[in-house]
């Protein structure tokens, strides 16, 4: 990928653009020109190039005096390929050139920065990868489990900007710059269990443990918002988390215990 560069030459502004969100679809599928333009210009930088020229015009007045008048010609816009600086008269020609010459560069993988448990991870991500897949398979944080993989069981719950969401139904590339909390982020740096984890330990709020990370993370969001929940509040907050062992009773007791002991 070409890096961002700024070059200024007299009368000519040329910038190389790191094409992000290219949207220039492989395989020749037509994308609207305005879309292409906007996509290329996402950062406020443009692949267009407006050239203004200073023109000296010499005219001879009737009485034999020479006058020089300086005018500025109207600008003409050319379209510049960010990879090789070739210029084109219109957007269609630029697009055709990109698709013909720079297909490899238009790879779908994108570098994104994910902030997980207060750590920044820079990772290459394909657009269709879910957040669950990326945090498990690319970041190695396998504490978040995958149950149904279609948003019906609550197993894969993580906090996205403090909100409990189903990581199997969220695209990782849409999570840049948002803080994410997984089960691994609950314990303290020295390994001390979070009060919620401690309560679940003591009350044995689990059996096989598979739904446990999703339930504990959902509980964290609940207690952060409502430190003294009623039984109904708890049941409601956890109504999207399925437990195959039927351990709901001890789960409820664990959450009540965490709340009573100040489980934030």
């Amino acid at each position, binding site marked *: 990928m070409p890096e961002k560069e700024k070059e200024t030459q007299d009368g000519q502004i040329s910038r190389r653009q790191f094409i992000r969100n290219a949207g220039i679809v492989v395989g020749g599928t037509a994308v609207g020109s305005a879309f292409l333009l906007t996509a290329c210009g996402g950062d406020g930088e443009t692949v267009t190039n407006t050239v203004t020229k200073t023109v000296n015009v010499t005219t001879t007045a009737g009485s034999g005096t020479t006058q020089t008048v300086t005018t500025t010609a109207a600008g003409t816009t050319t379209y510049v390929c960010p990879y090789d600086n070739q210029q084109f008269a219109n957007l269609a020609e630029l697009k055709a050139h990109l698709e013909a010459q720079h297909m490899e560069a238009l790879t779908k993988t994108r570098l994104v920065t994910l902030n997980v448990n207060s750590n920044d991870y820079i990772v290459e991500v394909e657009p269709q990868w879910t957040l669950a897949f990326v945090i*498990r*398979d690319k970041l*190695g*944080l*396998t*504490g*978040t*489990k*995958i*149950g*149904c*993989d*279609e*948003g*019906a*069981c609550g*197993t894969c719950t993580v906090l996205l900007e403090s909100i409990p969401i189903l990581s199997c139904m969220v695209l990782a590339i849409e999570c840049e710059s948002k803080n994410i909390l*997984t*089960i*691994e982020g*609950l*314990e303290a740096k020295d390994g001390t*269990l979070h009060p919620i*984890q401690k309560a*679940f*330990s*003591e*009350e*044995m709020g*689990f*059996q*096989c*443990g*598979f*739904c*446990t*990370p999703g339930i*504990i993370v959902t509980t964290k969001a609940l207690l952060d918002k409502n430190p003294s929940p009623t039984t109904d509040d*708890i*049941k*409601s907050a*956890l*109504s999207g*988390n*399925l*437990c*195959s*062992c*039927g*351990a*709901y*009773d*001890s*789960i*409820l007791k664990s959450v009540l215990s965490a709340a009573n002991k100040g489980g934030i």
Partner: protein
Amino acid sequence: MTIVGTSPIVKDARLKVTGQAIYTQDVNIPGMLHGKILRSPLAHAKIISIDTAEAELLPGVRAVVTHKDCRPDGMNSYWSPPRLMFAVDKVRFVGDPVAAVAADTVEIAEEAVKLIKVEYQELPLVLDPIEALKPDAPQIYEAGNSFTMAQGMATSGTPCFAATKGDIEQGLKEADISADFIISTPIITNHSPETDTTVAQWFGEQLTVWSSSQGGFTLHSILSMVFGIRETDIHLISNYSGAGHGANLKECSMRACITALLSRKAKMPVKISYTKREVFSCMSMPDKAKIRVRVGAKDDGSLTALEILQYHDIGGYGETHAVYSGFAQSSLVDFYKCPNVKFVLYTCMTNNGVGGYFRSYGPEMTCWAIEMGIERVLGKLGIDAGKFKLKNHLQPGDKTHDDTLLTESSVFDIDFTAAMNGIGWDTKWHAPGKGETYEGSKKRGVGLACATKHHTKNDKSVELKISRDGSIQFNSFPGNFGQGIGSSLSVLLAEALGAKYEDINTVILGDSDISPFTTCSFGSSTLFYGGHAILQAAQEARAILFERAANILGVKAEDLESKDSVISLKADPTKKVTFKDALQKPYVFDIVISNHVYGPAVQTNTGGRGGGIFPSGALAVEVEVDTETGQVTVLEACSSHNLGKAIHRKVAEGQVSGGALLNIPRAHRLFIPIDPVTGTPLVTSDDGYAWATMVDDVMPIVNITEVPEPLGPMGAAPIGEKSVAGTSAAVMSAVFNAIGVWIDDKPLTPDKVLKALGKV
């Protein structure tokens, strides 16, 4: 006892609450490929051809396999009937494996599977077990559609099992009142929460497998027979598994075989992680049956005859235990005192999915049918069924029709009473359909059922190690799927050794290379026999410790006692050595004891077909039926179980509470609909499957009875399965009590209830 009966923090608590517990879906090996299985979209068809050429050419594909890659004599005989891992000449259910692919990524594997061209010739299909036995039914197997213990596949209609006592026809003649009806159970799934996974890797001719499983060496013997390698060439690591309730007993062997086959061909490790749809529809469809019940009774309710003809649908293929589940509870046919009983099991092949078994195999078929039989006649007579059952069941010391002895732990009087009191039976029972109406349209009723399940006699082993630093480890191979066995055995061990529970620091439950022979976890036998194994090992270890301590202290071993990992003189506790001291002098030493318990050797006098004991349990429920919408809600449930001795209190309570809670929905809302035209399961994931939730299902009131089971370790009785028993019977009886109308088919969804009420 100081530790038994308490609730120390379970051994794997930290791993589970931090997300550090590794489940097989978390296993990642360098270079690992991803496998996907091509499954038949048709329920019954001949395979004309399989063309894998295009799939093999896809970049990133490393291996493609079909039945051609299997050893012809590598049949998996834990299936009924035995089969190769791939269909050969025909497919028999939607999802029947036909081929598999290993590729660099899951996406490439999925794409490659779509490129495999299979030519099918569709055959007519049959989805009902009674229909399947008719002479003009589509033949799923050449020999016929019946499976029998004696001869495998047999002519359609050959019974698999039968037991009789007395004379049924005579008993029916003597009856004042009788009933003859057919009830049915739906298709459900074992609902494993995880996407069950296996990873396989070969080292020469030695195979390592990581798999969700229910432990035991069953998978070894299957892999051994399928690949023609020795069992000791197989290293199975059973990671933490999501609750399988029996799904991970045998079907996981199909997944393991396919994964291993791909790995062998690709010469790389391979991982197959089932999609939820595969978990739902290709792993295990338990307890599907049509059951005809004929029952007769006198005017006072006493039974004169009870006949159960059970048509058990085990699909296109069943696991071997699926067959057992068909007759497993037949001992109880005369549990409610009946002089003439008959039980006949027809194990029927159909084009439904794999016949499996759900935790507590049998009660949702046979025991349910028994309860429905007695409830029907009592209902006609207007007799309080709960009170009647309390007075008319077999007692400890009695034998069932097949000579199964009810031991001292079969104290059903106590559990029936506790369950009924728990929900306030006396103030709530009324004549069927004659109770109060609430909120203009809601009727309430109560129901009681016995909740028991025989445990199976099998083999468990434990290897105990007390290290030279005094720390204690043990290993066994029951698998790790939430049964709390590691902690329960630790409690027993700590008690027997006189050690601190906390000093038992390593409990390995899933590594076949280090574990002595153990059967997998089924039949509520792990705590029972594993408990004996660990107690015996503890005795031996204690003897060695005391001998060494006696040496150090210069006293006699019999004058010593141990507590909190310290051995001291009874007469003078200041004279003591720690476990560590005892293992350091006169030379450093580890104590290693391996103990194997052979089930049948533990019990010699319980007789009967299976010889398993039936510790008591009962479930009482109160339901509310909204007669305007057909919605059935369980308002209260009380589950009372005799555990003999609750070894780890919270583990035991969790089993009793969780078992009832998770199984109650089978009575009134849990099912998978099957497309009648193609045999395709129409619900393939949690979305659309009405499993128990926090807001829908009542937390059962739990009562734990502790009348010791003399055959059990420290008096403990088995619990794993019976905790889910009795649920459908109790709920359906309660619905009858509420609305006064019987509904024959489970589950009691709104359409059925409204139809029964004449509102459709």
